[in-house]
C-alpha cells in the first residue's frame, strides 16, 4: 500500500470517528459542550469517560458520520471556539487529576473569515501552550487525518500513538502538489514525499507506537481497531500514571526538545558536524 492509499484510508467516509471510538471503547461518557463564551463548535467532541475502569478526559476532532452530520460537524475542522472547548476540557482534567486522551482526526483548522476574525492562530497557540505545561498525563492518538496546526492543537502530549492507516502532515498532499508543481494532480507523488504515514512517523521518531487496524483497515474492522487502540492507550496510561507530575512534565519537555533535526556548523569551523537529527 503506497502513501496515497493510506491517505485514502485515513479519509475513508466509513472510517470510525472520535465519537465512534468513544462509543466502542468507553463505558461511561458525559459530553461537555461549548466554549462558555457564546457558542458550541461541533467539530470538536469532548467529555469525561471511563474505559475499563479508568477515568479519563477525552477531546477529539469529530468529523461526523453521514453527509448531514459531516456538514454539521464541519468535517472536524475546528474554529477558535472548538479549540476553546478542548482547552476547557484540558483545564478540567488538570483540576480533577484526570489523564487526557486526545483523538486527532482533522483535515486542518477551518480556513474561514469568521474563524480568523475570532483569532484562529491565537486559539491554536493557546492550546499548544496549555498542553505543554498541563499537570496531568496526556496521551495523543492520531486516528485519521492529522492536518497541520489544527491537528497539533490537540496533538501535544507524553505519548503519541498512531493508527496504522492514519496520517500526519504539515500540508495536504494536494496542497503540497499545487505549491511545488502548481498542479494539484500530483498529490500521489506529494503524499510519498511528505512521509506522512505511521511507518514514516515511527522512522522519524515522532510517535511512540503504531496501533494495528486489522485487514482492510479500521473502516472494515471498526470494533477490532477501537479495541486495539484502547489496549495501547491503557498500556501507556499505566506507565505515565506511575510518574510524579514534576517528572512527567520534565519528560514531556525532554521529549519535544529531542525533536531537533538540524546540523550545527560551529562559527570557527568549516565542516558540517555535531547534531544531526535528535540531540543526544
Amino acid at each position: 500500500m503506497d502513501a496515497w492509499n493510506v491517505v485514502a484510508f485515513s479519509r475513508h467516509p466509513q472510517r470510525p470517528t472520535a465519537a465512534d471510538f468513544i462509543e466502542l471503547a468507553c463505558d461511561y461518557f458525559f459530553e461537555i459542550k461549548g466554549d462558555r463564551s457564546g457558542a458550541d463548535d461541533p467539530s470538536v467532541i469532548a467529555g469525561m469517560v471511563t474505559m475499563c475502569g479508568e477515568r479519563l478526559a477525552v477531546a477529539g476532532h469529530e468529523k461526523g458520520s453521514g453527509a448531514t452530520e459531516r456538514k454539521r460537524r464541519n468535517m472536524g475542522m475546528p474554529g477558535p471556539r472548538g479549540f476553546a472547548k478542548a482547552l476547557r476540557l484540558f483545564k478540567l482534567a488538570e483540576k480533577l487529576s484526570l489523564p487526557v486522551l486526545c483523538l486527532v482526526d482533522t483535515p486542518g483548522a477551518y480556513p474561514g473569515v469568521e474563524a480568523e476574525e475570532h483569532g484562529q492562530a491565537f486559539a491554536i497557540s493557546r492550546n499548544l501552550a496549555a498542553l505543554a505545561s498541563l499537570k496531568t498525563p496526556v496521551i495523543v492518538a492520531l486516528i485519521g487525518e492529522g492536518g497541520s496546526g489544527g491537528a497539533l492543537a490537540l496533538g501535544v502530549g507524553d505519548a503519541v500513538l498512531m493508527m496504522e492507516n492514519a496520517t500526519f502532515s504539515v500540508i495536504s498532499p494536494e496542497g503540497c502538489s499545487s505549491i511545488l508543481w502548481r498542479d494539484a494532480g500530483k498529490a500521489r507523488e506529494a503524499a510519498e514525499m511528505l512521509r506522512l504515514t505511521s511507518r514514516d512517523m515511527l522512522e522519524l521518531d515522532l510517535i511512540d507506537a503504531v496501533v494495528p487496524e486489522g485487514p482492510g483497515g479500521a473502516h472494515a474492522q471498526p470494533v477490532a481497531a477501537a479495541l486495539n487502540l484502547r489496549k495501547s492507550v491503557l498500556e501507556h496510561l499505566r506507565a505515565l500514571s506511575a510518574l510524579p507530575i514534576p517528572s512527567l512534565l520534565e519528560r514531556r519537555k525532554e521529549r519535544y526538545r529531542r525533536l531537533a533535526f538540524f546540523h550545527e556548523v560551529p562559527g570557527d569551523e568549516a565542516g558540517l558536524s555535531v547534531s544531526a537529527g535528535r540531540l543526544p
Partner: protein
Amino acid sequence: MTGQGEIRERRAEGSAACADSRIVSLRDRARRLWTRCPGCGLEVERSGLRASLGVCPHCGFHHRISVGERAGYLFDPGSFRVADEIILTADPLCFQGGAYRREAQELGREAMAYGTAAVRGSSCVAALMDFSVFGGSMSAAVGEIFRRACALGVEHGLPLLAAVCSGGVRVQEGAPALMQMARVMFALEELSEARLPFISLLCDPSCGGVAASFATAADVILAEPGALICFSGPRVVEQTLGIKPEPDFSRAESLLERGLVDMVVPRPRQREVIGGLLAFFSERG
C-alpha cells in the same frame, strides 16, 4: 514597469540584438533603483525607501525589509551581538532527493537570527525573522534558534523580543517542522517560569504555524501597519469558500479592533515604544 517601458520593449522586438539588450539592461538598472509600491502603485526610489526605514513616503506602506535593516533602525548602534553558531537543516524528509538540502546549505543561513541587543539603553534578547530564507518559514533549525533565544534570555535574565515575518511552517520539512510549533512553546514556558516578558512584533506576513505558535503567545503583541496576521491566508480562504475576503481581511488594524493585538506601531515609532516597554520591564523587583 511603466507602460512606456512596454512600448519600448515591443519596438525593440524587430531590431538588432544589441539594442534589445541595451533596453533590457536599462530596465534592469531602473529596477535596481526604483520599485513599485504595492500600497499606492507609485514608483519609489529604493535609496529613499531605505532612508525612510522601508516606509513609502507617499502612502506609508511598510515594505518588507531585511534582518540587517531591521536591526539597523531598531537597536542602539552596534548593540546587536548576533549568536555566531550556524544552524542548518538536517533535511529530515530528504525532500526532492536532497535538492532542498542543497538549496538550504547554499543559502548558508536560516530564517531567524538571534542575539542580545539594546533598544534605547534597555537590553533584550532579539530574534529576527528573515523572509528571504524560504519565506521566513519555520524549519527545525528555526525552532532550535528560537529555543536558544529563549534559553539566552533565561541565562541572562533578559526579556525576549521577536520580530515575526513568516509564511508558516516549512513544507519541505514536513511533520518534523510542524512539531517545532510545540517545541518552541516548551522553550517559551521556561521563559515564563523565569518570569521574563516576551514582546512580539508582527510584520507582514505573520501567518500559518508561526502565527499559531510563538508569535501570538507573547505578553505584548505589537504589529506593523497593514501586516497580514492570520492562520489561513486570503488565498486559502478563497479556495475553500469561493469568496474573496475583503482587502482588510486579517490585517493588523482589524486585529487591533478585535482585541487580538495590543498596538499597531509604524516603524519610526517602534524604537520609542519597544524601548519604553523594555525600560518598564527592567524596573521589576
